[in-house]
Protein backbone atom coordinates (compact mmCIF):
# COMPACT_ATOMS: atom_id res chain seq x y z
CA UNK A 1 0.00 0.00 0.00
CA UNK A 2 2.82 2.36 0.78
CA UNK A 3 4.31 1.80 -2.63
CA UNK A 4 1.21 3.10 -4.35
CA UNK A 5 1.60 6.38 -6.19
CA UNK A 6 -1.95 7.48 -5.50
CA UNK A 7 -4.26 6.28 -2.76
CA UNK A 8 -7.67 7.81 -2.21
CA UNK A 9 -10.39 6.90 0.23
CA UNK A 10 -13.90 8.36 0.00
CA UNK A 11 -12.53 11.50 -1.59
CA UNK A 12 -15.38 13.99 -1.91
CA UNK A 13 -15.74 17.52 -3.18
CA UNK A 14 -18.90 19.54 -2.89
CA UNK A 15 -19.58 22.94 -4.44
CA UNK A 16 -22.55 24.28 -2.54
CA UNK A 17 -25.16 21.52 -2.67
CA UNK A 18 -23.63 20.05 -5.82
CA UNK A 19 -21.36 17.04 -5.26
CA UNK A 20 -18.75 17.07 -8.01
CA UNK A 21 -16.87 13.99 -6.84
CA UNK A 22 -18.69 11.63 -4.56
CA UNK A 23 -16.60 9.42 -2.25
CA UNK A 24 -14.19 8.02 -4.80
CA UNK A 25 -11.80 5.33 -3.64
CA UNK A 26 -8.98 3.92 -5.75
CA UNK A 27 -5.28 3.15 -5.83
CA UNK A 28 -2.75 3.64 -8.56
CA UNK A 29 0.50 1.68 -8.44
CA UNK A 30 3.90 3.15 -9.14
CA UNK A 31 4.72 2.95 -12.85
CA UNK A 32 1.13 2.22 -13.80
CA UNK A 33 -0.67 3.87 -16.70
CA UNK A 34 -4.04 4.74 -15.22
CA UNK A 35 -6.85 5.89 -17.50
CA UNK A 36 -9.32 8.23 -15.83
CA UNK A 37 -12.44 8.31 -18.00
CA UNK A 38 -15.85 9.89 -17.71
CA UNK A 39 -18.37 11.97 -19.58
CA UNK A 40 -18.07 15.77 -19.63
CA UNK A 41 -19.02 17.03 -16.20
CA UNK A 42 -18.66 13.65 -14.50
CA UNK A 43 -16.17 15.13 -12.06
CA UNK A 44 -12.84 14.14 -13.62
CA UNK A 45 -11.33 17.58 -13.59
CA UNK A 46 -12.36 18.20 -9.99
CA UNK A 47 -10.79 14.92 -8.87
CA UNK A 48 -7.62 15.67 -10.80
CA UNK A 49 -7.34 19.14 -9.29
CA UNK A 50 -7.65 17.71 -5.79
CA UNK A 51 -4.92 15.19 -6.48
CA UNK A 52 -2.65 17.92 -7.82
CA UNK A 53 -3.14 19.91 -4.63
CA UNK A 54 -5.07 22.71 -6.35
CA UNK A 55 -8.39 22.09 -4.61
CA UNK A 56 -9.08 21.20 -1.00
CA UNK A 57 -11.38 18.18 -0.69
CA UNK A 58 -14.59 18.49 1.31
CA UNK A 59 -13.98 15.13 2.95
CA UNK A 60 -12.15 11.85 2.54
CA UNK A 61 -8.47 11.08 2.37
CA UNK A 62 -5.87 10.88 -0.34
CA UNK A 63 -2.15 10.50 -0.64
CA UNK A 64 -0.17 11.36 -3.73
CA UNK A 65 3.43 10.15 -3.92
CA UNK A 66 3.10 9.35 -0.22
CA UNK A 67 2.10 12.92 0.73
CA UNK A 68 -1.20 13.99 2.21
CA UNK A 69 -3.27 16.19 -0.10
CA UNK A 70 -4.58 18.31 2.78
CA UNK A 71 -1.34 19.26 4.41
CA UNK A 72 1.54 18.47 2.11
CA UNK A 73 0.52 20.08 -1.16
CA UNK A 74 3.92 21.76 -1.51
CA UNK A 75 5.74 18.43 -1.47
CA UNK A 76 3.18 16.95 -3.84
CA UNK A 77 3.67 19.74 -6.37
CA UNK A 78 7.40 19.01 -6.44
CA UNK A 79 6.79 15.35 -7.17
CA UNK A 80 4.22 15.63 -9.95
CA UNK A 81 4.17 16.79 -13.55
CA UNK A 82 1.09 18.24 -15.22
CA UNK A 83 0.07 18.72 -18.80
CA UNK A 84 -3.25 19.65 -20.35
CA UNK A 85 -4.46 20.25 -23.85
CA UNK A 86 -5.30 23.83 -23.08
CA UNK A 87 -2.30 25.00 -21.13
CA UNK A 88 0.91 23.61 -22.38
CA UNK A 89 3.67 25.95 -23.45
CA UNK A 90 4.41 29.60 -23.95
CA UNK A 91 3.84 30.18 -27.62
CA UNK A 92 5.98 33.29 -27.74
CA UNK A 93 9.04 31.62 -26.25
CA UNK A 94 11.36 29.35 -28.19
CA UNK A 95 11.55 25.61 -27.58
CA UNK A 96 14.75 26.03 -25.62
CA UNK A 97 13.43 28.93 -23.56
CA UNK A 98 10.37 26.93 -22.59
CA UNK A 99 12.53 24.02 -21.42
CA UNK A 100 14.77 26.41 -19.49
CA UNK A 101 11.82 28.11 -17.87
CA UNK A 102 10.15 24.93 -16.64
CA UNK A 103 13.48 23.48 -15.58
CA UNK A 104 14.04 26.65 -13.58
CA UNK A 105 10.62 26.47 -11.93
CA UNK A 106 11.34 22.99 -10.65
CA UNK A 107 14.71 24.07 -9.34
CA UNK A 108 16.98 22.14 -11.68
CA UNK A 109 20.56 23.37 -11.77
CA UNK A 110 21.90 25.01 -14.93
CA UNK A 111 24.01 21.95 -15.64
CA UNK A 112 21.00 19.64 -15.27
CA UNK A 113 18.90 21.86 -17.50
CA UNK A 114 21.59 21.85 -20.18
CA UNK A 115 21.93 18.11 -20.08
CA UNK A 116 18.17 17.51 -20.01
CA UNK A 117 17.62 19.94 -22.87
CA UNK A 118 20.13 18.05 -24.99
CA UNK A 119 18.51 14.69 -24.23
CA UNK A 120 15.01 15.98 -24.78
CA UNK A 121 15.77 17.63 -28.11
CA UNK A 122 17.55 14.50 -29.29
CA UNK A 123 14.69 12.26 -28.22
CA UNK A 124 12.10 14.38 -30.02
CA UNK A 125 14.41 15.11 -32.95
CA UNK A 126 13.83 18.79 -32.39
CA UNK A 127 17.49 19.89 -32.45
CA UNK A 128 16.97 22.03 -35.53
CA UNK A 129 13.89 23.70 -34.04
CA UNK A 130 15.45 24.46 -30.65
CA UNK A 131 15.61 28.16 -31.42
CA UNK A 132 12.19 28.37 -33.06
CA UNK A 133 9.16 29.88 -31.39
CA UNK A 134 6.79 27.24 -30.06
CA UNK A 135 3.95 28.90 -31.99
CA UNK A 136 5.62 27.84 -35.25
CA UNK A 137 5.50 24.11 -34.39
CA UNK A 138 2.68 21.81 -35.53
CA UNK A 139 0.18 20.90 -32.82
CA UNK A 140 1.41 17.32 -32.47
CA UNK A 141 4.98 18.42 -31.84
CA UNK A 142 3.83 20.92 -29.28
CA UNK A 143 2.00 18.19 -27.40
CA UNK A 144 5.02 15.90 -27.45
CA UNK A 145 7.26 18.72 -26.32
CA UNK A 146 4.78 19.65 -23.66
CA UNK A 147 4.74 16.12 -22.28
CA UNK A 148 8.52 15.91 -22.29
CA UNK A 149 8.67 19.13 -20.33
CA UNK A 150 6.09 17.83 -17.85
CA UNK A 151 8.44 14.96 -17.01
CA UNK A 152 11.60 17.07 -17.17
CA UNK A 153 12.07 17.13 -13.41
CA UNK A 154 11.65 13.34 -13.13
CA UNK A 155 8.34 13.46 -11.29
CA UNK A 156 7.03 10.26 -9.81
CA UNK A 157 3.53 10.92 -11.19
CA UNK A 158 2.43 12.85 -14.24
CA UNK A 159 -1.14 14.03 -14.78
CA UNK A 160 -2.28 14.33 -18.38
CA UNK A 161 -5.58 16.06 -19.10
CA UNK A 162 -6.79 15.14 -22.60
CA UNK A 163 -3.27 15.39 -23.98
CA UNK A 164 -4.02 14.25 -27.53
CA UNK A 165 -7.17 16.16 -28.52
CA UNK A 166 -7.19 17.00 -32.23
CA UNK A 167 -3.77 15.48 -32.91
CA UNK A 168 -3.24 13.40 -36.08
CA UNK A 169 -3.24 9.61 -35.66
CA UNK A 170 0.48 9.06 -36.21
CA UNK A 171 1.54 11.78 -33.82
CA UNK A 172 -1.01 10.52 -31.32
CA UNK A 173 0.75 7.17 -31.31
CA UNK A 174 4.15 8.76 -31.09
CA UNK A 175 2.79 10.56 -28.07
CA UNK A 176 1.77 7.26 -26.52
CA UNK A 177 5.24 5.92 -27.25
CA UNK A 178 6.52 8.69 -25.00
CA UNK A 179 4.01 7.73 -22.33
CA UNK A 180 5.03 4.08 -22.48
CA UNK A 181 8.67 5.05 -22.29
CA UNK A 182 8.10 7.10 -19.14
CA UNK A 183 5.99 4.38 -17.55
CA UNK A 184 8.75 1.92 -18.35
CA UNK A 185 11.10 4.11 -16.31
CA UNK A 186 8.71 3.86 -13.38
CA UNK A 187 6.75 7.10 -13.79
CA UNK A 188 3.09 6.78 -12.90
CA UNK A 189 0.82 8.09 -15.65
CA UNK A 190 -2.62 9.44 -14.77
CA UNK A 191 -4.42 10.28 -18.01
CA UNK A 192 -7.85 11.44 -19.17
CA UNK A 193 -8.93 11.07 -22.78
CA UNK A 194 -11.94 11.08 -25.05
CA UNK A 195 -10.34 8.59 -27.46
CA UNK A 196 -11.61 5.20 -26.37
CA UNK A 197 -8.87 3.33 -28.25
CA UNK A 198 -6.38 5.21 -26.10
CA UNK A 199 -8.15 3.93 -23.03
CA UNK A 200 -7.10 0.46 -24.13
CA UNK A 201 -3.45 1.47 -23.89
CA UNK A 202 -3.81 1.94 -20.16
CA UNK A 203 -2.99 -0.74 -17.61
CA UNK A 204 -6.15 -0.01 -15.71
CA UNK A 205 -9.10 2.28 -16.24
CA UNK A 206 -11.67 3.90 -14.02
CA UNK A 207 -14.90 5.25 -15.44
CA UNK A 208 -16.64 8.06 -13.59
CA UNK A 209 -20.35 8.70 -13.88
CA UNK A 210 -22.01 11.54 -11.99
CA UNK A 211 -19.17 12.00 -9.53
CA UNK A 212 -18.79 8.32 -8.69
CA UNK A 213 -16.39 5.68 -9.96
CA UNK A 214 -18.71 3.18 -11.62
CA UNK A 215 -16.09 0.75 -12.92
CA UNK A 216 -12.41 0.12 -12.32
CA UNK A 217 -10.44 -2.68 -13.92
CA UNK A 218 -8.06 -3.57 -16.71
CA UNK A 219 -9.44 -2.88 -20.20
CA UNK A 220 -9.87 -6.57 -20.94
CA UNK A 221 -11.43 -7.17 -17.53
CA UNK A 222 -13.97 -4.41 -18.16
CA UNK A 223 -14.80 -5.71 -21.59
CA UNK A 224 -15.38 -9.16 -20.15
CA UNK A 225 -17.45 -7.80 -17.30
CA UNK A 226 -19.71 -5.77 -19.58
CA UNK A 227 -19.62 -8.28 -22.37
CA UNK A 228 -18.52 -5.60 -24.79
CA UNK A 229 -16.36 -5.68 -27.89
CA UNK A 230 -14.54 -2.43 -27.22
CA UNK A 231 -13.98 0.14 -24.53
CA UNK A 232 -16.33 2.41 -26.42
CA UNK A 233 -19.18 -0.02 -25.78
CA UNK A 234 -18.26 -0.33 -22.11
CA UNK A 235 -18.27 3.43 -21.80
CA UNK A 236 -21.60 3.82 -23.58
CA UNK A 237 -23.22 1.13 -21.41
CA UNK A 238 -22.02 2.77 -18.22
CA UNK A 239 -22.79 6.34 -19.11
CA UNK A 240 -26.17 5.42 -20.54
CA UNK A 241 -27.14 3.54 -17.40
CA UNK A 242 -27.39 6.76 -15.46
CA UNK A 243 -30.31 8.14 -17.42
Amino acid at each position, binding site marked *: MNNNAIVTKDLTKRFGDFTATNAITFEVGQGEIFGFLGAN*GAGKTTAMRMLCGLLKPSSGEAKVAGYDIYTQTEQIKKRIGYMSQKFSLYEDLTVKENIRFYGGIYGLSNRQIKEKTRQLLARLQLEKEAGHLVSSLPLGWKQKLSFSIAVLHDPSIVFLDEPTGG*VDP*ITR*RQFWDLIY*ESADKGVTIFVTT*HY*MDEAEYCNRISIMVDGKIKALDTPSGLKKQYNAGSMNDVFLQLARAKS
Partner: protein
Amino acid sequence: MQPIIVENIHKSFGDVKALHDISFTIGEGELFGLIGPDGAGKSTLFRILATLLLADEGNAKVNGRDVVKEYRTIRREVGYMPGRFSLYQDLTIEENLNFFATIFNTTVEENYELIKEIYEQIAPFAKRPAGKLSGGMKQKLALCCALVHKPKVLFLDEPTTGVDPVSRKEFWDMLQRLKTKGIPILVSTPYMDEAVLCDRVALIQKGAIMQINTPANIVAGFGMPVWAMKAKNIYRLIHDLRAFKGVLSCYAFGEYLHVTLDTELDDVKAYLAPLGHEALEIKPAAPGIEDAFMQLMQEQNELT
Protein backbone atom coordinates in the same frame (compact mmCIF):
# COMPACT_ATOMS: atom_id res chain seq x y z
CA MET B 1 -27.76 19.96 -59.21
CA GLN B 2 -25.00 19.20 -56.72
CA PRO B 3 -25.63 21.20 -53.54
CA ILE B 4 -21.92 21.78 -52.95
CA ILE B 5 -19.26 22.02 -55.62
CA VAL B 6 -15.69 22.87 -54.71
CA GLU B 7 -13.16 23.36 -57.49
CA ASN B 8 -9.40 23.77 -57.09
CA ILE B 9 -9.53 25.92 -53.97
CA HIS B 10 -6.21 27.34 -52.75
CA LYS B 11 -5.75 29.48 -49.69
CA SER B 12 -2.61 30.74 -47.97
CA PHE B 13 -2.11 32.85 -44.86
CA GLY B 14 1.25 34.49 -45.41
CA ASP B 15 3.72 31.67 -45.91
CA VAL B 16 1.39 29.04 -44.51
CA LYS B 17 -0.50 27.05 -47.11
CA ALA B 18 -3.81 26.39 -45.43
CA LEU B 19 -5.49 24.75 -48.40
CA HIS B 20 -3.94 23.28 -51.49
CA ASP B 21 -5.99 22.42 -54.56
CA ILE B 22 -9.16 21.23 -52.86
CA SER B 23 -11.91 19.83 -55.08
CA PHE B 24 -14.97 17.75 -54.26
CA THR B 25 -18.72 17.69 -54.69
CA ILE B 26 -21.48 16.76 -52.31
CA GLY B 27 -24.71 15.24 -53.61
CA GLU B 28 -28.33 15.72 -52.54
CA GLY B 29 -28.96 14.47 -49.04
CA GLU B 30 -25.40 13.30 -48.61
CA LEU B 31 -23.55 13.25 -45.28
CA PHE B 32 -20.01 14.16 -46.22
CA GLY B 33 -17.18 14.07 -43.70
CA LEU B 34 -13.95 16.04 -43.68
CA ILE B 35 -11.63 13.89 -41.61
CA GLY B 36 -8.34 15.28 -40.42
CA PRO B 37 -6.41 16.52 -37.40
CA ASP B 38 -6.32 20.09 -36.10
CA GLY B 39 -4.48 22.38 -38.46
CA ALA B 40 -5.35 20.33 -41.55
CA GLY B 41 -7.30 23.27 -42.99
CA LYS B 42 -10.82 22.09 -42.25
CA SER B 43 -12.04 25.32 -40.65
CA THR B 44 -10.57 27.44 -43.44
CA LEU B 45 -12.53 25.41 -45.98
CA PHE B 46 -15.72 25.83 -43.96
CA ARG B 47 -15.24 29.56 -43.81
CA ILE B 48 -14.72 29.78 -47.53
CA LEU B 49 -17.92 27.84 -48.14
CA ALA B 50 -19.80 29.91 -45.57
CA THR B 51 -18.66 33.02 -47.52
CA LEU B 52 -16.62 34.28 -44.60
CA LEU B 53 -13.25 33.97 -46.32
CA LEU B 54 -12.17 34.48 -49.89
CA ALA B 55 -10.13 31.77 -51.57
CA ASP B 56 -6.91 32.78 -53.30
CA GLU B 57 -7.69 30.55 -56.28
CA GLY B 58 -10.47 28.31 -57.43
CA ASN B 59 -14.20 28.63 -56.93
CA ALA B 60 -17.01 27.03 -55.05
CA LYS B 61 -20.77 26.84 -55.38
CA VAL B 62 -23.30 26.24 -52.65
CA ASN B 63 -26.79 25.43 -53.91
CA GLY B 64 -25.68 26.53 -57.32
CA ARG B 65 -24.65 29.95 -56.08
CA ASP B 66 -21.16 31.34 -56.26
CA VAL B 67 -19.60 31.85 -52.81
CA VAL B 68 -18.07 35.18 -53.80
CA LYS B 69 -20.68 36.87 -55.99
CA GLU B 70 -23.83 35.56 -54.40
CA TYR B 71 -22.73 35.53 -50.81
CA ARG B 72 -25.85 37.26 -49.59
CA THR B 73 -28.14 34.55 -50.88
CA ILE B 74 -25.92 31.79 -49.54
CA ARG B 75 -25.90 33.37 -46.11
CA ARG B 76 -29.67 33.08 -46.00
CA GLU B 77 -29.65 29.48 -47.09
CA VAL B 78 -26.97 27.74 -45.04
CA GLY B 79 -26.89 26.58 -41.47
CA TYR B 80 -23.38 27.03 -40.10
CA MET B 81 -21.94 25.90 -36.79
CA PRO B 82 -18.40 27.26 -36.46
CA GLY B 83 -15.72 25.23 -34.71
CA ARG B 84 -15.34 27.52 -31.75
CA PHE B 85 -19.00 28.44 -31.59
CA SER B 86 -20.15 28.63 -28.01
CA LEU B 87 -23.45 30.54 -28.07
CA TYR B 88 -24.28 33.37 -25.69
CA GLN B 89 -23.34 32.01 -22.28
CA ASP B 90 -25.52 34.46 -20.39
CA LEU B 91 -28.66 33.79 -22.39
CA THR B 92 -30.90 30.81 -21.66
CA ILE B 93 -31.50 27.97 -24.11
CA GLU B 94 -34.81 29.51 -25.06
CA GLU B 95 -33.39 32.99 -25.53
CA ASN B 96 -30.50 31.75 -27.64
CA LEU B 97 -32.79 29.80 -29.90
CA ASN B 98 -35.32 32.60 -30.26
CA PHE B 99 -32.57 35.05 -30.99
CA PHE B 100 -31.08 33.00 -33.79
CA ALA B 101 -34.52 32.25 -35.19
CA THR B 102 -35.35 35.94 -35.36
CA ILE B 103 -32.15 37.12 -36.94
CA PHE B 104 -32.72 34.53 -39.64
CA ASN B 105 -36.17 36.04 -40.17
CA THR B 106 -38.15 33.12 -38.86
CA THR B 107 -39.63 31.78 -35.64
CA VAL B 108 -38.95 28.66 -33.66
CA GLU B 109 -42.55 27.53 -34.22
CA GLU B 110 -42.33 27.82 -37.99
CA ASN B 111 -39.65 25.16 -38.37
CA TYR B 112 -40.19 23.34 -35.11
CA GLU B 113 -40.68 20.07 -37.00
CA LEU B 114 -37.03 20.05 -38.00
CA ILE B 115 -35.56 20.61 -34.56
CA LYS B 116 -38.27 18.93 -32.53
CA GLU B 117 -36.38 15.73 -31.79
CA ILE B 118 -33.21 17.50 -30.76
CA TYR B 119 -34.90 20.30 -28.89
CA GLU B 120 -37.02 17.98 -26.78
CA GLN B 121 -33.84 16.56 -25.26
CA ILE B 122 -32.79 19.95 -23.95
CA ALA B 123 -36.24 21.45 -23.42
CA PRO B 124 -36.33 20.58 -19.69
CA PHE B 125 -33.46 23.04 -19.23
CA ALA B 126 -34.97 25.77 -21.42
CA LYS B 127 -34.56 28.40 -18.71
CA ARG B 128 -30.95 27.57 -17.95
CA PRO B 129 -28.16 29.85 -19.24
CA ALA B 130 -26.11 28.23 -22.01
CA GLY B 131 -22.95 28.73 -19.95
CA LYS B 132 -24.23 26.26 -17.37
CA LEU B 133 -24.93 23.42 -19.81
CA SER B 134 -22.77 20.33 -20.26
CA GLY B 135 -20.70 19.97 -23.42
CA GLY B 136 -23.18 17.59 -25.04
CA MET B 137 -26.17 19.82 -24.36
CA LYS B 138 -24.35 22.85 -25.73
CA GLN B 139 -23.72 20.98 -28.97
CA LYS B 140 -27.38 20.06 -29.22
CA LEU B 141 -28.43 23.64 -28.66
CA ALA B 142 -25.89 24.85 -31.20
CA LEU B 143 -27.26 22.38 -33.73
CA CYS B 144 -30.80 23.60 -33.06
CA CYS B 145 -29.61 27.18 -33.62
CA ALA B 146 -28.00 26.20 -36.91
CA LEU B 147 -31.16 24.41 -38.04
CA VAL B 148 -33.79 26.80 -36.84
CA HIS B 149 -34.14 28.63 -40.17
CA LYS B 150 -34.50 25.39 -42.14
CA PRO B 151 -31.27 25.71 -44.08
CA LYS B 152 -30.82 24.07 -47.45
CA VAL B 153 -27.26 23.03 -46.56
CA LEU B 154 -25.71 22.34 -43.18
CA PHE B 155 -22.06 23.11 -42.35
CA LEU B 156 -20.84 21.65 -39.05
CA ASP B 157 -17.24 22.40 -38.17
CA GLU B 158 -15.96 19.93 -35.57
CA PRO B 159 -19.24 19.61 -33.70
CA THR B 160 -17.99 16.74 -31.53
CA THR B 161 -14.55 17.98 -30.53
CA GLY B 162 -14.00 17.82 -26.79
CA VAL B 163 -17.32 16.07 -26.27
CA ASP B 164 -17.49 12.73 -24.45
CA PRO B 165 -18.21 9.50 -26.39
CA VAL B 166 -21.82 9.28 -25.24
CA SER B 167 -22.72 12.76 -26.43
CA ARG B 168 -20.75 12.16 -29.60
CA LYS B 169 -22.79 9.07 -30.37
CA GLU B 170 -26.04 10.91 -29.71
CA PHE B 171 -24.93 13.74 -31.93
CA TRP B 172 -24.18 11.40 -34.83
CA ASP B 173 -27.53 9.69 -34.38
CA MET B 174 -29.15 13.09 -34.79
CA LEU B 175 -27.17 13.72 -37.97
CA GLN B 176 -28.30 10.41 -39.42
CA ARG B 177 -31.92 11.37 -38.81
CA LEU B 178 -31.41 14.83 -40.30
CA LYS B 179 -29.98 13.22 -43.39
CA THR B 180 -33.24 11.41 -43.96
CA LYS B 181 -34.90 14.83 -44.24
CA GLY B 182 -32.82 15.45 -47.32
CA ILE B 183 -30.46 18.14 -46.04
CA PRO B 184 -26.92 17.71 -47.35
CA ILE B 185 -24.46 17.93 -44.47
CA LEU B 186 -20.78 18.77 -44.54
CA VAL B 187 -19.23 17.82 -41.21
CA SER B 188 -15.64 17.81 -40.04
CA THR B 189 -14.04 15.81 -37.25
CA PRO B 190 -10.62 14.87 -35.96
CA TYR B 191 -12.00 11.53 -34.68
CA MET B 192 -11.21 8.86 -37.27
CA ASP B 193 -13.80 6.47 -35.86
CA GLU B 194 -16.54 8.89 -36.85
CA ALA B 195 -15.62 8.56 -40.53
CA VAL B 196 -17.59 5.32 -40.93
CA LEU B 197 -20.75 7.22 -39.99
CA CYS B 198 -20.52 9.37 -43.12
CA ASP B 199 -21.68 8.48 -46.64
CA ARG B 200 -18.43 9.67 -48.11
CA VAL B 201 -15.35 11.21 -46.54
CA ALA B 202 -12.39 13.31 -47.61
CA LEU B 203 -9.23 12.53 -45.66
CA ILE B 204 -7.45 15.83 -45.25
CA GLN B 205 -3.99 16.52 -43.89
CA LYS B 206 -1.70 19.56 -44.19
CA GLY B 207 -4.21 21.42 -46.35
CA ALA B 208 -4.46 18.72 -49.00
CA ILE B 209 -7.07 16.05 -49.59
CA MET B 210 -5.38 12.65 -49.56
CA GLN B 211 -8.40 10.64 -50.64
CA ILE B 212 -12.14 10.97 -51.22
CA ASN B 213 -14.29 7.88 -51.12
CA THR B 214 -16.88 5.96 -49.16
CA PRO B 215 -15.52 4.67 -45.86
CA ALA B 216 -15.90 1.10 -47.09
CA ASN B 217 -13.91 1.76 -50.25
CA ILE B 218 -11.18 3.55 -48.35
CA VAL B 219 -10.76 0.57 -46.09
CA ALA B 220 -10.97 -1.83 -49.04
CA GLY B 221 -8.25 0.14 -50.78
CA PHE B 222 -5.83 -0.42 -47.92
CA GLY B 223 -4.35 -3.16 -50.03
CA MET B 224 -2.39 -5.27 -47.58
CA PRO B 225 -3.12 -7.56 -44.70
CA VAL B 226 -2.99 -6.18 -41.19
CA TRP B 227 -1.97 -8.29 -38.22
CA ALA B 228 -3.13 -7.64 -34.72
CA MET B 229 -0.53 -8.53 -32.14
CA LYS B 230 -0.30 -8.18 -28.44
CA ALA B 231 1.78 -9.36 -25.54
CA LYS B 232 1.90 -8.75 -21.84
CA ASN B 233 4.50 -6.03 -22.19
CA ILE B 234 3.19 -4.12 -25.13
CA TYR B 235 5.82 -1.43 -24.99
CA ARG B 236 8.62 -3.97 -25.44
CA LEU B 237 6.69 -5.63 -28.26
CA ILE B 238 6.44 -2.31 -30.13
CA HIS B 239 10.17 -1.81 -29.80
CA ASP B 240 11.04 -5.31 -30.93
CA LEU B 241 8.71 -5.16 -33.91
CA ARG B 242 9.93 -1.78 -35.06
CA ALA B 243 13.48 -3.03 -34.87
CA PHE B 244 12.64 -5.80 -37.34
CA LYS B 245 13.33 -5.03 -41.00
CA GLY B 246 10.32 -6.84 -42.38
CA VAL B 247 7.87 -4.68 -40.44
CA LEU B 248 6.47 -1.83 -42.53
CA SER B 249 4.46 -0.16 -39.85
CA CYS B 250 3.56 -0.89 -36.27
CA TYR B 251 1.04 1.21 -34.42
CA ALA B 252 -0.97 0.77 -31.28
CA PHE B 253 -4.69 0.22 -31.89
CA GLY B 254 -6.65 -0.26 -28.74
CA GLU B 255 -5.35 -3.25 -26.88
CA TYR B 256 -3.60 -4.68 -29.96
CA LEU B 257 -0.86 -3.43 -32.23
CA HIS B 258 -1.64 -3.15 -35.92
CA VAL B 259 1.31 -4.41 -37.92
CA THR B 260 1.86 -4.48 -41.67
CA LEU B 261 4.66 -6.53 -43.20
CA ASP B 262 6.59 -6.81 -46.41
CA THR B 263 7.63 -10.32 -45.49
CA GLU B 264 5.91 -13.52 -44.45
CA LEU B 265 4.19 -13.67 -41.07
CA ASP B 266 6.24 -16.74 -40.20
CA ASP B 267 9.44 -14.68 -40.44
CA VAL B 268 8.07 -12.34 -37.79
CA LYS B 269 6.97 -15.23 -35.63
CA ALA B 270 10.44 -16.74 -35.93
CA TYR B 271 11.98 -13.38 -35.03
CA LEU B 272 9.78 -12.91 -31.97
CA ALA B 273 9.99 -16.45 -30.64
CA PRO B 274 13.37 -16.20 -28.90
CA LEU B 275 12.57 -12.77 -27.43
CA GLY B 276 10.39 -14.35 -24.80
CA HIS B 277 7.22 -12.29 -24.97
CA GLU B 278 4.64 -13.48 -22.49
CA ALA B 279 1.08 -14.07 -23.70
CA LEU B 280 2.01 -13.26 -27.29
CA GLU B 281 -1.02 -13.26 -29.52
CA ILE B 282 -1.09 -12.80 -33.29
CA LYS B 283 -4.22 -12.75 -35.44
CA PRO B 284 -5.43 -11.19 -38.66
CA ALA B 285 -7.15 -7.83 -38.25
CA ALA B 286 -9.45 -5.78 -40.41
CA PRO B 287 -7.92 -2.42 -41.29
CA GLY B 288 -9.94 0.69 -40.41
CA ILE B 289 -10.11 4.27 -41.61
CA GLU B 290 -7.38 5.16 -39.18
CA ASP B 291 -5.02 2.56 -40.71
CA ALA B 292 -5.76 4.04 -44.11
CA PHE B 293 -5.27 7.56 -42.89
CA MET B 294 -1.89 6.77 -41.43
CA GLN B 295 -0.82 4.94 -44.56
CA LEU B 296 -1.80 7.94 -46.68
CA MET B 297 -0.09 10.30 -44.26
CA GLN B 298 3.12 8.37 -44.60
CA GLU B 299 2.89 8.45 -48.38
CA GLN B 300 2.27 12.19 -48.23
CA ASN B 301 5.24 12.68 -45.93
CA GLU B 302 7.48 10.71 -48.23
CA LEU B 303 6.44 12.87 -51.17
CA THR B 304 7.30 16.14 -49.46
